[in-house]
């Protein structure tokens, strides 16, 4: 902006102007930001992932591998549901004599914490990733339809999203779990469906409007671009345009939100467990370990802190990775 009062922070927008002038011959009308992103993406692509990103990836890979191996029984773990009565409330790294092999101690019932945490990782990851896949697929499709077609389709879908978003997520999830359990009970006999499936569906439905809104907003801006008009002019059908022209541009935003979504779902599963509608004990999940043992926070804090720390690091890694994905994919704007 003209001289006065401005200009002390000569940062990105200024840089973009220089980049425009020096790196992008041929275009008279200013597209500064775009040029700059070209420069940034150029350097971004060459730049290696930071240490933080590698730590985050390493943590997530480790957790996933351990969860899978534990589930396959490939790890020398104790039975997560067996009570070692002598060892109830045993702290972590206890001396050998009293509690052989309980590396992370035991819970109030004397069950081995390490085994419960690693078995529990499976349930936690399954529920949170499953829920986000449900949200990703349905939210993505609905958001894409709303953003691409606009008009009445958009009005109706956005209204539905807003209604769902206006209900507090936990209450909505609670209601959905109750409803789904009820209907599963009717059709599936006394045993009912796997509670994990019900959780995936409930948390998935909660995340649909979130992912739907993000997808819609992104699809809306990309659908206004002239290459979409050009595809229409060539006679491409809407499905082809959405899949080939719009989706690849919307996907980065969706992916980064989905990674954050996994973290949110993992915490939500924990919250539901505390409220008593999470993964059903005795099957462990990080959330229900906290939920069922919460009364022992005073005398045996390790029972709560161990799963809480796992959730903390996993959520942190997912958040961090979500940011990295967005930063690396989003700046990939076309630029001349």
């Amino acid at each position, binding site marked *: 902006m003209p001289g006065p009062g401005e200009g002390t922070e000569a940062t990105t927008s200024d840089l973009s102007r220089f980049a425009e002038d*020096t790196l992008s011959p041929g275009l008279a*009308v200013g597209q500064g930001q775009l040029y700059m992103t070209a420069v940034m993406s150029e350097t971004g692509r060459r730049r290696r992932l930071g240490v933080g990103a590698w730590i985050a990836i390493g943590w997530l890979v480790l957790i996933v591998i351990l969860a899978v191996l534990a589930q396959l029984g490939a790890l020398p773990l104790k039975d997560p549901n067996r009570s070692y009565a002598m060892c109830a409330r045993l702290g972590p790294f206890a001396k050998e004599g009293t509690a052989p092999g309980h590396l992370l101690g035991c819970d109030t019932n004397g069950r081995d914490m390490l085994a419960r945490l690693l078995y529990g990782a499976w349930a936690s990851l399954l529920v949170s990733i499953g829920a986000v896949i449900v949200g990703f697929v349905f939210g993505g499709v609905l958001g894409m339809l709303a953003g691409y077609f606009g008009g009445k389709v958009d009005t109706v879908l956005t209204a539905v999203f807003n209604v769902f978003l206006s209900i507090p997520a936990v209450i909505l999830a609670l209601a959905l779990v109750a409803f789904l359990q009820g209907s599963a009970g009717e059709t599936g006999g006394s045993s009912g469906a796997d509670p994990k499936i019900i959780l995936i569906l409930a948390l998935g439905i909660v995340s649909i409007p979130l992912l739907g809104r993000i997808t819609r907003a992104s699809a809306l801006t990309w659908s206004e671009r002239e290459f979409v008009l050009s595809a229409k002019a060539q006679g491409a059908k809407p499905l082809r345009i959405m899949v080939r022209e719009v989706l690849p541009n919307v996907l980065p935003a969706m992916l980064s939100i989905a990674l954050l979504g996994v973290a949110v779902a993992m915490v939500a599963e924990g919250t539901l467990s505390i409220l008593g509608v999470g993964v059903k004990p005795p099957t462990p999940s990080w959330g229900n370990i906290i939920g069922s043992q919460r009364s022992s926070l005073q005398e045996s804090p390790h029972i709560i802190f161990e799963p809480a720390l796992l959730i903390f690091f996993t959520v942190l890694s997912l958040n961090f990775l979500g940011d990295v994905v967005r930063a690396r994919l989003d700046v990939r704007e076309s630029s001349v």
Partner: protein
Amino acid sequence: MERDDTLLQVTDLHTSFATGRGTVRAVDGVSLTLAAGRTLGIVGESGSGKTVLARSIMGLLPKRGATRTGSIRFEGQEIGELSPKDLRDFWGRQMAMIFQDPMTSLNPVMKIGKQITEAIHEHLEVDRSHAREMAVALLRSVRIPEPERRMKEYPHQLSGGMRQRVCIAVALACGPALLFADEPTTALDVTVQAQVLELIAQQQRERHMATIMITHDLGVVAGRADEIAVMYAGRIVERAPTAVLFSELRMPYTQALLSSIPRLDQPSHARLSTIPGRPPNLITPPPGCRFAPRCAFAQDRCRTEEPPLVAGDAPGHEYRCWFPVDPPSRRPATGTPVGAPNGGEA
């Protein structure tokens, strides 16, 4: 133009940027002089470094990654020696700038009136009502109808031409002695372009303000600049008083720029002369004359040895070429498009 009323003197200015791909030497040894109240046109393609030149002179470079060397004296004051606070004071009162895209240079969530009064408050000790009066007067002077009503509007409520007028009003708020206009009309319709250019010229006359007009279109500065400098790949390749430049141009690049403009007096479907290729990247500019790879008249010497800026016949005319073309004034009246290279003079 080396007179007492020299307003701006730039000597051997170099500006470079550190990027991921290497050091971009965007401005590479530019010297120029501008007298108070005069207009200098800086012409070149995008990528020629003309925007960076203006920003370097204003001291509007990013803090990190940019290096500037050389001397910039404004009314005898060396710009590089100003503290950030002095520099802030300097902007607006001494130099101001208008940009190509008025929408991005105005704050979208601030009313027009506030944007102008803020600029006034920044530099002048005036009370609120006085600043408001000044703002209304400014809007009126840039020919904005119903200025009182416009004061209460937001930038998006105005047309592109009106927004550029507001930008001009903001730039003029504190009566700068030098106005940079960086492609001020490129984003506008021809009719609005004519209005805005006329407005700048009129304000310049009334305020005895010097202007540096940056453009890629020689037509925009032809009738309005006192002097024109043609930039290519970070250097000035030809410079002359406007009338001299058009009649005595010697640099093939200037000629190519001029003849690529479609003209109303050409018959339709006339083939336009073009400049093949694109400007060189400024990380590793070509050896010798930087225009040589695209020049129709380039010879071996051009590719190895860089020509210096030499004086032409007319006073104030300088160009950078080993084998300059015949100037239009010495060409037969009919054959305008291509001038044959001379022998090895210069």
